């Protein structure tokens, strides 16, 4: 018996048969109304509760993760601020030892210059010699009327001559004195300059210190904010981490491209050294060898920058004593230099091989071998690239450190966001499930509307209207199943 036969079991007319089936269905549904409602509510309530519970757990997990992220961010920020303050103090120390260490000498120079200037000034202020006091009397006599006496006239002429002589001598003495004063004043000029220079030096040193102290103040303020665990500081550090992440990521991509170029430079000539046919797993040995050389260069760069205390990826290297660190610097730099030289020679060999290959290709193609002009330019270019790229790759440690540190923050933020989204989704699903249960109950009652109405009419003595089952049973729901409404702020 197939479905069609089953449908037509009551009558040959499909309409009648369908109506009978429908009536039977409504009757069964009416009879099973209470257990069906309970089942729907139970399923929707359980679903709602379980999803809300899961959402709450995720939310708590996200809160813990956020707190942990904040701790990490603040810790990183504290480290960075400490390093910045330490660096500023080093600079202050450098300024003090470079400029202010010579301050006693500058002070002595200034003092001596002032004393010399004062002495010269005193000398310059000496009064020029005055003409003798009796000259006024002689001048008066010389202007007396001579009369007719020749003797008197001669005496008076002698007096006048004496007076003129005395005047000339006085003038000469005054001129000499003025010249001497001018000389003294002129001699003061370099001393003034020296004084100005010394004062300028002292001022420069003090101004440098002042700038440093302002910078230290700003760093200290930032450090205090971090120590207090302020949200403002955390937000600033998070933003800074994100910026660092993207910038360092970009620089790393550039470095990787540089590494790929470097690889292409040395992979072919490596075949001459280790053979072009041997393989390590799915990779050619020559490729692996070229890659290992590049990786060793990067590692040497890491150690070099670590020894120089530019990066702090390896605390063991950073905590070495200075003599050992210097030895590490020399060793890593030497290895890097040797590897760079090897790469330069490999790059040259690659060029030779390429030329040879080109020549044989031309020969096989039937055309004569053409000597390219200025072929030495790409040869030298490749050699220089082969020498420079290892040193360039060595600096990858700086963006790498930033990337590693910032990636912790970024991953934390991303994970936190993901957890929050999942929690929101679960909460939404839970509420949807609950509401769907209510809709199903209403739909159920809609289907059995007719018998319900008959029941209502039969029992209609006290009640005019059958209260909505949806309203009836809302109160029956367990408290934890009901959706929580957002608190009104």
């Amino acid at each position, binding site marked *: 018996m197939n479905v069609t036969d089953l449908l037509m079991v009551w009558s040959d007319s499909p309409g009648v048969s369908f109506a009978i089936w429908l009536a039977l269905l409504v009757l069964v549904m009416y009879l099973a109304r209470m257990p069906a409602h309970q089942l729907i509510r139970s399923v929707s309530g359980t679903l709602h509760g379980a999803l809300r519970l899961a959402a709450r757990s995720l939310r708590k997990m996200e809160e813990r993760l956020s707190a942990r992220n904040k701790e990490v961010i603040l810790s990183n920020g504290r480290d960075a601020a400490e390093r910045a303050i330490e660096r500023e103090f080093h600079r202050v120390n450098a300024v003090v030892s470079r400029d202010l260490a010579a301050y006693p000498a500058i002070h002595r120079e200034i003092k001596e210059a002032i004393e010399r200037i004062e002495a010269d000034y005193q000398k310059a202020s000496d009064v020029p010699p005055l003409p003798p006091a009796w000259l006024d009397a002689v001048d008066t006599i010389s202007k007396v009327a001579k009369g007719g006496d020749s003797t008197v006239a001669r005496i008076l002429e002698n007096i006048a001559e004496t007076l003129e002589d005395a005047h000339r001598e006085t003038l000469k003495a005054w001129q000499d004195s003025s010249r001497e004063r001018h000389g003294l004043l002129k001699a003061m000029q370099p001393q003034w300059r020296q004084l100005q220079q010394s004062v300028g030096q002292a001022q420069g040193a003090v101004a440098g210190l002042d700038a440093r102290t302002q910078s230290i103040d700003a760093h200290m303020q930032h450090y205090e904010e971090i120590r207090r665990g302020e949200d403002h500081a955390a937000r600033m550090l998070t933003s800074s981490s994100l910026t660092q992440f993207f910038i360092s990521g970009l620089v790393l991509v550039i470095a*990787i491209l540089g*590494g*790929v170029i470097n*690889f*292409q430079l040395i*992979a*072919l000539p490596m*075949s*001459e050294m280790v*053979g*072009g*046919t*041997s*393989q390590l797993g*799915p*990779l*050619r040995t020559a*490729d692996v060898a070229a*890659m290992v050389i*590049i*990786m060793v260069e*990067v*590692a040497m760069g*890491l150690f070099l920058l670590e020894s120089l205390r530019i990066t702090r*990826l*390896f605390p063991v290297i950073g905590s070495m004593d200075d003599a050992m660190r210097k030895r590490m610097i020399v060793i890593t730099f030497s290895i890097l230099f040797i590897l760079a030289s090897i790469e330069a020679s490999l790059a040259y060999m690659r060029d030779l*091989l390429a030329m*040879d*290959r080109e*020549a*044989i*290709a031309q*020969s*096989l*193609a*039937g055309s004569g071998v053409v000597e390219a002009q200025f072929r030495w330019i790409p040869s030298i270019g490749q050699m220089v690239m082969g020498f420079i790229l290892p040193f360039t790759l060595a600096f990858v440690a700086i963006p*790498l450190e930033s990337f*590693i540190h910032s990636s912790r923050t970024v991953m934390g933020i991303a994970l936190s966001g993901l957890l929050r989204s999942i929690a929101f989704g679960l909460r939404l699903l839970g509420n949807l499930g609950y509401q769907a249960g209510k809709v199903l109950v209403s739909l159920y009652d809609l289907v059995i509307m007719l018998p319900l109405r008959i029941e209502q009419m039969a029992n209609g003595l006290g009640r005019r209207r059958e209260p909505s089952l949806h309203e009836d049973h809302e109160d029956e729901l367990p408290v934890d199943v009901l959706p929580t409404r957002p608190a009104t702020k």
Partner: protein
Amino acid sequence: MKNLILISVVMSVLLLTGCNEQEQRPKSRAVYMLLDTSGTYTEELAKAQKIINYLLMSLNSGDSIAVARIDSGSFSEKDIIAKVTFDSRPSTVNEQKRAFKRKMDAFIETARGSAHTDISGGILQAGEYLTETGADERYALIFSDLEEDLEKGQVRDFLIPLVDIKVIALNVTKLRSDNVDPRDYLHRLEAWEQRVQQGGGSWKVVNDLERLDSLLKL
């Protein structure tokens, strides 16, 4: 240390993905080329020279190539004109290619026609050589009109083992009789195809020698 491992892994992956596909997949190849030297087909040998040059340009370290002539009795090492397996060092490979080219140039200048055409013997010899090389990709190229003319008494009507060998017929020229009844030409090709496939090999015909770039990508 953890950081260093992470860096190493990331850099390795990125560097290796930066290599081109050919370098990532250095499969070895072996090519055995049969040159028909019977009758008037010797006039076509200049074209064969072009194909050999193309093969020399395409093959690299670790690959093998051999060129043999098809004459009255081709199932013989004596018919191999030149053969070489390229060294692992690129500089040596270039020298080997030069030497190979010199040998082939000399042969083509002095080639003389043979009385009979033992293609089956040549293919059998090719199958042996290619199997011995152990190469990942094996090609047997037949530069011939595929008209077999065996010497009296020669037995060649048996299965030729050509498992994993790609057989490519090159420059299959039409004979005078083919022009009278083109079905002869088609039947000839079909017969060889069946014979190769029965032996476990694959079959392809390339008559347009301008499309040599697809020769080793069957």
